């Protein structure tokens, strides 16, 4: 038995004796059958929302993402966060 087979056997055994891992795998299997609905925000949408000013607490979010010193940027840049850094 080579290393690859040993690893595979080890992985199968650990799944077999670990009910939590079996349930995670069973969940993944059943969810593979369905097409996820586009209901969660994607990273690029989050950025777009922050920079468009339509989101919530935009200034705080932009400050967190682009922590520039206040004197180095003008107000518009602080709000939109689109200044090329």
């Amino acid at each position, binding site marked *: 038995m080579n290393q690859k087979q040993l690893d595979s056997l080890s992985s199968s055994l650990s799944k077999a004796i670990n*009910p*939590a891992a*079996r*349930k*995670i795998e*069973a*969940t993944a*299997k*059943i*969810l593979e*059958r*369905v*097409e*996820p*609905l*586009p*209901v*969660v*925000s994607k990273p690029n*949408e*989050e950025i777009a*929302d*922050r920079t468009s000013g*339509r*989101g*919530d*607490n935009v200034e705080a*979010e932009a400050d967190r993402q682009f922590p520039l010193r206040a004197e180095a940027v003008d107000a518009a840049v602080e709000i939109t966060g689109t200044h090329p850094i």
Partner: protein
Amino acid sequence: MPHVYTLANAKGGCGKSTVALNLAVCFARAGYRTLAVDLDQQGNLSAALGADLNKLKFTAHRLLIDDQAEMGSFLVEPRSRLKLLPNTIDVEADDLLEAKKVNRELLLRRKLRPVLREFDLVVIDTPPAMRAATLNGLAVADTVLIPVDGSSYFALLGLNQLLQVVAAVRDAHKPDMVIRALTTMFNRRQNLDKQIRRQVEAFFGPELVLETPIHKNVGIAEAAALHKAVVEYSAIASGTFDFAKLTQELLQETVNEPKTTRQPLVQSE
């Protein structure tokens, strides 16, 4: 960190709030510090735990839409070791939550973070609609409990839509999330109920269906009408036996450390 159970099903009337109520009370009575979160604006879980829906100002929806609000000040303690984030109908808050654009499904996760260490278990009730509130409940779930009405021919309708939403949230935020199906309103004397149970097992696979069904029992509804869980209402109701067994089944799977303060779920009347 606490284990988070989220009750979800796109079909209404399958027992989400009833299961949430009874599980939350059972967990607390078993000695676990429990948080019940009512994300459903119908407020059935809140009312059953004794909240006055007409006077509620600090609701789950208000917490989620307010950037500055802290969860601690929104919680009430309807039972020993059981805290509740209540909810009631509030159209304005619901509209504002739906209108949120930035990571709106992660609002509850952010609010929960500071208080999580205060709890061993969290039980979340969600509305049937797959809207922002439900997404928030799913995004924090370790286990999504899907109650399936064991006596209804329509029980399996809508499951695909739920799974599509669960798949999206799991992919994006919770890769270790597990789903479990729970048969409710089950009557083992009815052939239809047995047939539906078999269909549920075939649909989810044996690994994901909870062994304990919740049988149809008038005691469960009577207890809720008196703002009680069935285990608080009657020691001999079949619902009491079912929820005690379900609690045990879930705790064995998800909570590793036995609590020294554990108490009997049912006290003699």
